[in-house]
């Protein structure tokens, strides 16, 4: 049984988060680095180039990498201080097993014994309950090599259908929408196409805090005359000086895009030739927006009618444009519909597949793109192939040297894995690069499911909040302790280089997976000696697929500052811009630039359904969640880096002064926010930059500071993304004594 071995406070005492600051060699200016390693940041999907200074097998600082073309030396605060995650006091140096008599509830065990125990439990659970009773949860911050190996480990070694990944909480609505409309899931353009456009449309993307390096691209576009349109319930820093800000009511994005399409049709701001030659489905989409007049759109979206008219006019009359969105429109129970409606206004404009005519989702995680292409997603095989397709199964099984019939069929998404635990269908779990107790919605439910597992093993470098429930913890590698590739926001495959060796018994994650395969007596296919060998097999497995990496090599990546997939042959330069006129792809085979047999993009009727839980009399406010600039995702790394914690020490509840006044709340007061699922007590931050009917809480914190105690586990029916961006809450002022007790406990 997986239980907390000690109280959370006792575990924190032993395993942190402890705050690391610059000290010792890192402060000593006399230290000449042994080497300077060109690599990339470990955090978000921008994947900024950075040079790490290494001395005596420690990362002691950084130097900007001015030559890397995407960021040219620029970094956000997370990138600047990322080096402090190395040589950290909380670092897991040994395998551990739960032991309530040990300090912090865990005692070190020999690595080999821990692997044997994990393998024996996997074997027992799968023999007793069937192969699908053991599930894997993986992550999109891993290198593509590791994500490929995780998919192969699930499908070939364990033969379980149940593997999914934390990209389920991130990019899947965009991915599903892109596949429906374009037949391929990748940013359509390199970021250089942002500069020189007439209009940059940003919907639901807090660029300044979540993708800071993109800011300079947006500002540079404006320097050259572009209008910047931002749609968000909050005036985020990128919205502060935009040309048009549309304060949308949470959950209404599809209505806004449909209203814009309505105006484009009414004013004939359409590219008829493009629509005729390169798309299908326009008439049905047009019919579906017929009723969405500006007046009706304004009422439904909460945006002033003249702002909608202005946005439509700028968008409609532009000759070049770039539309970007992120989790703000994707984290919804109708996230895919939001994405499809956004793509509709791009297709109607005909502005795609040309220089300065672009469209992209801003991928969130380090390897958000590569991590969703090569088989750790529940329905997928390498090369963005489908696990349900007989043809695709045959290809990959051929590369893996197995019978296609032995591959499992598609499994379920990450949240459904927990529901299957609840139903007793899943009994064992292995997690890596995923902290669901902090990052999944309605996490009280997640906690209850962890307690039902017969066996849980976690691979990590710090003891994250979920791993506290593990029977066995295996010490994995930090980003700078391994090499491999990731695919960043533009679809550019880049190289992560190793700077230091793992300390103690810790080792590269792919070795740990292979050690478990060997302990299971199924090491065939899991005998790679280095990441390059995994990558070379991945190239063969992806060959001929949509995400074709077959022509990419480590050397080519270094020589060209990254390679944009698809890159189907050794002499192929890569594909920075998708959908160019006359371009070839393996689905259309010359019929057209889009990835369907007829080569045409699809308009889709984008249907509005209200959020799963809109405000009502009992819970009258919208709660929306998101990130702050100095923290990353579940905070497992950034909550351990002192200067980043100092910058944003604790979550606060952002609310408008008119709401605060009504509730008798002053800035800094303790406030309870409560939903039908849970409550949290945090300090108020009273600002005029948020809609009066909405509160915002960032989600990077754990335990009693976790906003995911409140969020709803409603999911998009297609992408299965949870609805983090909307649920109904109420707030009340809390007296100081109650608040202090609740927070400390």
């Amino acid at each position, binding site marked *: 049984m997986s239980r907390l071995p000690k109280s959370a406070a006792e575990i924190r005492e032993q395993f942190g988060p402890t705050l690391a600051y610059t000290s010792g060699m890192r402060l000593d200016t006399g230290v000449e680095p042994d080497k300077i390693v060109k690599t990339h940041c470990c955090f978000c999907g921008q994947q900024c180039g950075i040079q790490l200074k290494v001395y005596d097998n420690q990362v002691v600082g950084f130097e900007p990498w*001015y030559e890397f073309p995407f960021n040219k030396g620029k970094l956000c605060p997370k990138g600047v201080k990322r080096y402090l995650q190395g040589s950290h006091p909380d670092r897991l140096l040994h395998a551990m097993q739960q032991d309530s008599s040990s300090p912090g509830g865990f005692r070190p065990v020999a690595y080999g014994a821990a692997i044997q125990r994990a393998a024996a439990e996997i074997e027992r659970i799968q023999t007793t309950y069937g192969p699908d009773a053991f599930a894997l949860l993986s992550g999109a911050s891993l290198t593509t090599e590791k994500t490929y190996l995780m998919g192969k480990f699930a499908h070939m070694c364990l033969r379980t259908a149940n593997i999914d990944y934390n990209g389920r909480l991130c990019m899947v609505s965009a991915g599903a929408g892109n596949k429906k409309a374009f037949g391929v899931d990748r940013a359509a353009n390199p970021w250089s196409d942002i500069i020189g456009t007439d209009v940059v449309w940003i919907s639901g993307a807090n660029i300044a805090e979540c993708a800071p390096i993109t800011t300079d691209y947006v500002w540079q576009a404006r320097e050259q005359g572009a209008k910047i349109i931002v749609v968000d319930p909050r*005036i985020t*820093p990128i919205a*502060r000086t935009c040309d048009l800000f549309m304060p949308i009511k949470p959950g209404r994005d599809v209505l806004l895009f449909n209203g814009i399409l309505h105006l484009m049709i009414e004013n004939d701001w359409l590219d008829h030739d493009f629509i005729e030659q390169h798309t299908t489905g326009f008439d049905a989409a047009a019919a579906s927006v017929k009723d969405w007049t500006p007046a009706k759109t304004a009422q439904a979206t909460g945006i002033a009618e003249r702002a909608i008219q202005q946005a439509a006019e700028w968008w409609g009359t532009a000759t070049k444009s770039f539309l970007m969105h992120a989790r703000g429109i994707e984290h919804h129970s109708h996230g895919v519909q939001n994405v499809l409606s956004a793509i509709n206004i791009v297709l109607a404009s005909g502005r795609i597949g040309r220089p300065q005519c672009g469209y992209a989702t801003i991928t969130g995680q380090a390897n958000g793109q590569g991590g969703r292409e090569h088989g750790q997603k529940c329905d997928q095989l390498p090369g963005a192939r489908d696990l349900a397709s007989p043809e695709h199964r045959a290809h990959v099984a051929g590369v893996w040297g197995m019978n296609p019939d032995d591959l499992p069929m598609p499994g379920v998404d990450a949240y459904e894995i927990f529901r299957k635990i609840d139903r007793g269908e899943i009994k064992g779990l292995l997690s890596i690069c995923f902290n669901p107790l902090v990052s999944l919605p309605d996490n009280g439910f997640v906690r209850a499911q962890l307690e039902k597992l017969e066996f849980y093993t976690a691979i990590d470098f710090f003891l994250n909040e979920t791993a506290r429930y593990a029977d066995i913890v295996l010490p994995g590698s930090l980003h700078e302790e391994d090499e491999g590739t990731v695919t960043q926001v533009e679809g550019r495959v880049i190289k992560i280089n190793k700077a230091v060796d793992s300390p103690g018994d810790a080792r590269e994650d792919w070795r740990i997976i292979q050690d478990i395969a060997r302990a299971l007596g199924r090491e065939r296919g899991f005998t790679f000696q280095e990441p390059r060998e995994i990558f070379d097999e991945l190239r063969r497995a992806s060959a001929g697929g949509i995400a074709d990496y077959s022509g990419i090599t480590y050397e080519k990546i270094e020589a060209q500052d990254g390679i944009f997939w698809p890159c189907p042959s050794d002499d192929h330069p890569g594909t920075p811009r998708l959908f160019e006129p006359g371009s070839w792809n393996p689905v259309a085979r010359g019929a057209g630039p889009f990835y369907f047999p007829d080569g045409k993009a699809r308009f889709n009727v984008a249907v509005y359904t209200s959020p799963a839980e809109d405000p009502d009399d009992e819970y009258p406010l919208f709660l929306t969640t998101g990130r702050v600039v100095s923290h990353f995702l579940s905070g497992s790394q950034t909550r351990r880096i002192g200067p980043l914690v100092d*910058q944003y020490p604790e979550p606060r509840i952002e609310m408008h002064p008119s709401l605060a006044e009504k509730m008798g709340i002053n800035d800094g007061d303790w406030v309870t926010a409560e939903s039908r699922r849970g409550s949290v007590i945090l300090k108020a931050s009273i600002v005029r930059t948020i809609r009066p009917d909405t509160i915002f809480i960032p989600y990077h914190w754990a335990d009693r500071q976790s906003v995911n105690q409140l969020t709803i586990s409603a999911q998009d029916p297609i992408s299965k993304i949870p609805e983090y961006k909307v649920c109904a809450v109420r707030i009340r002022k809390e007296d100081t004594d109650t608040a202090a007790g609740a927070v400390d406990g």
Partner: protein
Amino acid sequence: MPKPAEYEFFVDSSRCIGCQACLQACAECDTHKGISLIQLDFIDRSVSTQTAPVVCMHCNSPTCAEVCPADAIKRTEDGIVQTALKPRCIACNNCVLACPFGVPKMNTGMNMMMKCNMCYDRTSVGLKPMCASVCPSQALYYGTREEIEALRPRSRPVNSFQFGRQIITTKVNMMVPLEEPLNFVKMARAMYDAPPAQDMTDDPLLANMYTE
């Protein structure tokens, strides 16, 4: 590569997103001993996300040096006003009080004044300062005048600042809108402006919200 002397520093607060990458990176400069010497403040977070980064402006006639009784603050030939010389600084706070831009800060732990020295170890050998290197919005830009003119056609650099009757010229430039008629920045102007409107007419959020 142009010679270091041709590089200049340009500040454009309208680009600033308040991310504090500059603050975090400033402490990483070898001569700053882990201490951040750049300042970044919200103007008024309750109203706006507007922030303003403040580096040392490196005045041509630095007030901080003029008021220093210990002659601890030197302006080198390249126009950089250096941080206080440790053996001379008596931690009297004169410079802290006198600087019109509010740049020098007393470091009580080290018992001396410290301030931005434009990453002298870097800029003196042709490297960019840390803050402008990392700045994601390029509100802080370090490069040549030709580069900034090509990159920023909507604004122009100004390096004169009016405080009361005094006009101070500096090595560091501030970007002002192209249509701005003055060739100097009136630093105290905002003190005499009306406070921001508290109703819908001038509120960028409420003004664009739907009303019945």
